[in-house]
């Protein structure tokens, strides 16, 4: 199973990025092969709809789980349509959160925020 998590830096000590749609990178972790891959988030510089585009790339990467502190409603709609589960991260590094998820310690993200649309983008 592949897990996607928005991160601030492309290294294993990285913290979790506070934004899903505009995170600079995603860390994709494969629980079977233990492979870790960083992908650039091409949505980060979008004029609008960054969450939708970021979610699309997570869907296309065939991740089954997203770990994130926050998620907007449009991104959640794309992820939900693909059957991807969204879990809420804790205040810890990205790898600590992945381990916590594997041990069943993270809970589903319940609060989906209405987005930060139109903040200077138009």
């Amino acid at each position, binding site marked *: 199973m592949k897990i996607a998590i928005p991160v601030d830096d492309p290294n294993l000590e990285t913290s979790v990025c506070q934004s899903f749609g505009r995170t600079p990178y995603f860390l994709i972790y494969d629980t079977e092969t233990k492979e870790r891959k960083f992908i650039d988030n091409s949505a980060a510089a*979008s004029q609008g*709809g960054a969450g*939708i*585009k970021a979610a*699309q790339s997570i869907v296309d990467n065939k991740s089954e789980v997203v770990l994130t502190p926050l998620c907007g409603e449009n991104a959640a709609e794309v992820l939900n349509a693909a059957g991807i589960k969204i879990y809420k991260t804790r205040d810890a590094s990205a790898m600590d959160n992945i381990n916590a998820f594997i041990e069943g310690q993270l809970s589903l993200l319940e609060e989906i925020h209405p987005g930060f649309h*139109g903040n200077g983008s*138009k």
Partner: protein
Amino acid sequence: MEANNMRIAVLSGKGGTGKTLVSVNLAAAAKESIYIDCDVEEPNGHLFFKPENVKEEEITIKIPSVDEQLCMGCRICAYFCRFNALAYVNDKLKIFDDVCHCCGGCVLLCPVEALSDKDKVIGKVQKGTKDNVTVNTGILNFGVESGVPIIKKLLNENKPGGKKLTFIDCPPGSACIVMESIKEADYCILVAEPTLFGVHNLNMVYELVKLFDRPHGVVLNKCLDGENPAEKFCLEKNIKILDRIPFDHELGTLNSNARIAVKENEKYQTLFASLLQKVTKEVQQHETVTNP
């Protein structure tokens, strides 16, 4: 340019500065005028005029709609959309209406004509009259992102070259919606408050009118005795100060009760009639300089 067919926009960097006070009273002070409320998120000019015989028209935009039988999942539309209003998930195209800027590009580019235009109502325009003023109001529905199509409609309905003096009550700020409102204005009145915050906001709209190369002047509102940072800013930047409106309890009370000051008291009639004259003169002078 004849004094009676000018388009004068009234703007400010933030709300509550006095745009509506100035535009409503100027429109009421003019012999015959058109008032256009472009502050579509919270239009309030009509509260002052209380227009009669109001006619209403819905405003729609075109957003894409997909025929899932025809869509083959090429994603050309999704790649094209710079606002990412389309996603392709589980062999289905998802369209985010609220994110769409209705450019129509996706419909044009679809190679199998799976996308077509669909109307979406975003608000309405109202037109009525009261005494010497034709009152136009734009109203944007809750939750809709952009009021620009409503402003386009309002300004198209009242094209330049008409026979009446037109006052455009702009939305606050300096975003797209304000740019649309001042695009074809002959003159811009910037309304400013005597505070540091007021100066910051004045600077925003000042930069905007310079960018659009619109002739402009400032009305200093809520003036008190003592130092006025907005006045200082105008003097430093060499911006024309058109008038000073005092911080006046009576004016504030009239305005907060939705009364039109020029109709209530001779001194406000004199104040706004003189402002109107100065603005008219400014526009004509500018015309002579640019088209001698």
